[in-house]
């Protein structure tokens, strides 16, 4: 750790991992509800569990991004953070607001929560991923602005590297496109159209800038490759991301009432979306092969390489699988989408956060890298989680293909629930694999407390 103020990243990372555990537990509850429908009903209906599952994911990824920014930016700009106190204050506000929101979801019926929190003044709730009460949404904006102020001021007074500029641009974009979550017209088609401006332009737009900046930072640190080289590839990759991804939004505009030409625009551009992910994989491996130093933190390198590969598989390949309009006509709104969502989010955003945490946490705890046994344990957790997400994806893909076949093709299509009953075996397999994932996560956390072996302190 080169700057004192980087220490504020630590609580952010700890909170991120804590919420990650919560996300997985609720995922397991939902997975079980898929096979035993009345599990925990009516205490935790499926829609509540799902809200908690997806909202926790978003919140912990945001904690990860913010922690990453607080760790990276001082080192990149070679100056202390503008205000570490503000960063800590925002940490507690965000954590408490997040926790209260989750408690609200679990304790109060959603309609009551809505009327308690001013949803009648400005209705924004009840849309997928944007279920947060109005006051939480406003809170997110306030926290994001304070955070951006803090980071931007730091960049302004320090060295302006490409990595810090890209990171900043991604974070500002994140805040700007979140504003569309406040726009909820009574016309459902318009509602959906602009809902994607938050959702798609986040995950296939500005978040990828954040992802790229974080990955580039970790790669510079663990490989020692020249900054010039890494930064110019970063620019090329994120250029490709936005060139393909912005119009790629069109792959969500096939069947929601929007004009037919989106089928062409969406198909053409999103067919190209795997390219930047492929470049990212090649880039990560190339940089590691051309490394000019042997960094003792092998686990961080593994996570960084894993990000490239799994983001390409999950976002690139699994995205492409169902992005062409004639295919999507059949797969839209089935388990195929769920399969893609799981691997893409894990491969891109979960893994890049874990790569950053894996690199930064030892530093924040006063060492260059964890001990050998601790790293071995962490690598085991890498493989357990990664392999289980691959299998979860495969099972869901199989379920999705069967669902399409049974429910949407042939002369005597089955009804929704009848088709679901036929594919139950894959939901069981998915749930069992989910427990393996949890095991990996437990091992991951355990590796932080591993006392065996000597931690490496030499820089």
């Amino acid at each position, binding site marked *: 750790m080169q700057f004192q103020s980087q220490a504020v990243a630590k609580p952010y990372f700890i909170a991120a991992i804590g919420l990650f555990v919560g996300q997985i537990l609720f995922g397991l509850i939902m997975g079980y509800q898929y096979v035993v429908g009345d599990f925990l009903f009516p205490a935790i209906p499926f829609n509540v569990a799902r809200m908690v599952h997806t909202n926790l994911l978003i919140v912990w990824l945001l904690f990860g991004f913010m922690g990453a920014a607080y760790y990276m930016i001082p080192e990149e700009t070679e100056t202390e953070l503008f205000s570490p106190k503000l960063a800590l204050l925002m940490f507690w506000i965000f954590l408490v607001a997040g926790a209260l929101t989750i408690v609200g979801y679990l304790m109060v019926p959603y309609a009551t929560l809505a009327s308690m929190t001013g949803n009648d003044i400005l209705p924004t709730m009840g849309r997928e991923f944007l*279920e947060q009460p109005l006051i939480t949404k406003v809170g997110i904006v306030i926290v994001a602005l304070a955070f951006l102020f803090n980071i931007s001021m730091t960049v302004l007074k320090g060295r302006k590297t490409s990595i810090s500029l890209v990171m900043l641009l991604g974070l500002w974009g994140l805040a700007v496109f979140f504003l569309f979550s406040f726009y909820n017209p009574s016309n459902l088609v318009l509602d959906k159209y602009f809902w994607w401006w938050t959702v798609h332009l986040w995950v296939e737009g500005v978040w990828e800038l954040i992802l790229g900046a974080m990955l580039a930072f970790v790669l510079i640190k663990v490989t020692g490759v020249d900054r010039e080289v890494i930064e110019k590839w970063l620019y090329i990759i*994120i250029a490709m991301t*936005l060139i393909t991804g912005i119009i790629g939004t069109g792959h969500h505009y096939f069947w929601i009432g929007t004009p037919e030409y989106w089928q062409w625009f969406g198909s053409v551009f999103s067919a190209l979306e795997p390219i930047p992910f492929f470049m990212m994989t090649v880039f990560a491996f190339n940089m590691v092969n051309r490394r000019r130093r042997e960094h003792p933190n092998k686990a961080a390198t593994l996570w960084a390489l894993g990000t490239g590969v799994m983001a390409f598989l999950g976002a690139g390949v699994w995205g492409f699988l169902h992005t062409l309009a004639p295919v999507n006509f059949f797969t839209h709104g089935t388990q195929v989408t769920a399969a893609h969502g799981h691997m893409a989010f894990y491969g891109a955003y979960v893994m890049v956060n874990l790569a950053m945490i894996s690199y930064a946490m030892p530093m924040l705890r006063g060492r260059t890298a964890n001990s050998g046994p601790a790293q071995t344990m962490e690598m085991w957790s890498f493989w357990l989680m990664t392999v289980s997400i691959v299998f979860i994806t495969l099972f869901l893909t199989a379920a999705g293909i069967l669902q399409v076949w049974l429910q949407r093709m042939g002369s005597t299509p089955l009804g929704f629930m009848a088709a679901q009953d036929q594919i139950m075996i894959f939901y069981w397999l998915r749930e069992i694999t989910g427990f393996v994932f949890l095991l990996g996560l437990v091992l991951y956390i355990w590796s932080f407390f591993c006392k065996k072996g000597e931690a490496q302190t030499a820089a």
Partner: protein
Amino acid sequence: MSETFTKAMARNIFYGGAVFFFLLFLGLTFDTMQTLPKRDHRENITDSVVRGKHIWETRDCIGCHTLLGEGAYFAPELGNVYTRRGGPFIKAWIAAQPTGAPGRRQMPQFNLTDQELDDMVAFLKWTSEVNTNKWPPNIEG
């Protein structure tokens, strides 16, 4: 000068490409906004439809169902439920939940009034009339 590959040019391409394609996206959005009234039949959005959408949102229906294919995949597609089942069935179904059948997926009881049920149906009816380029592939959704 056998090979030139500068960071400045890479950066220009990033900014230029991003702005260029965002402008194209805005252009297409503009055209979409002009075209939509013919496809979403907004003249049919009555107060009842508006209230129905509000009920849809405040019960977090999207947390289990899909609507025009978007949402959760735990329960049936409702974009075309009006054509599949008809208004009276929808009302009776919502009012009868949960089924309580052991081991089966359960839908909560929302205690909607008759007026609210009518609003819900109005919203689903309007939704089923949106021009979705013939999606879903069949009546089962």
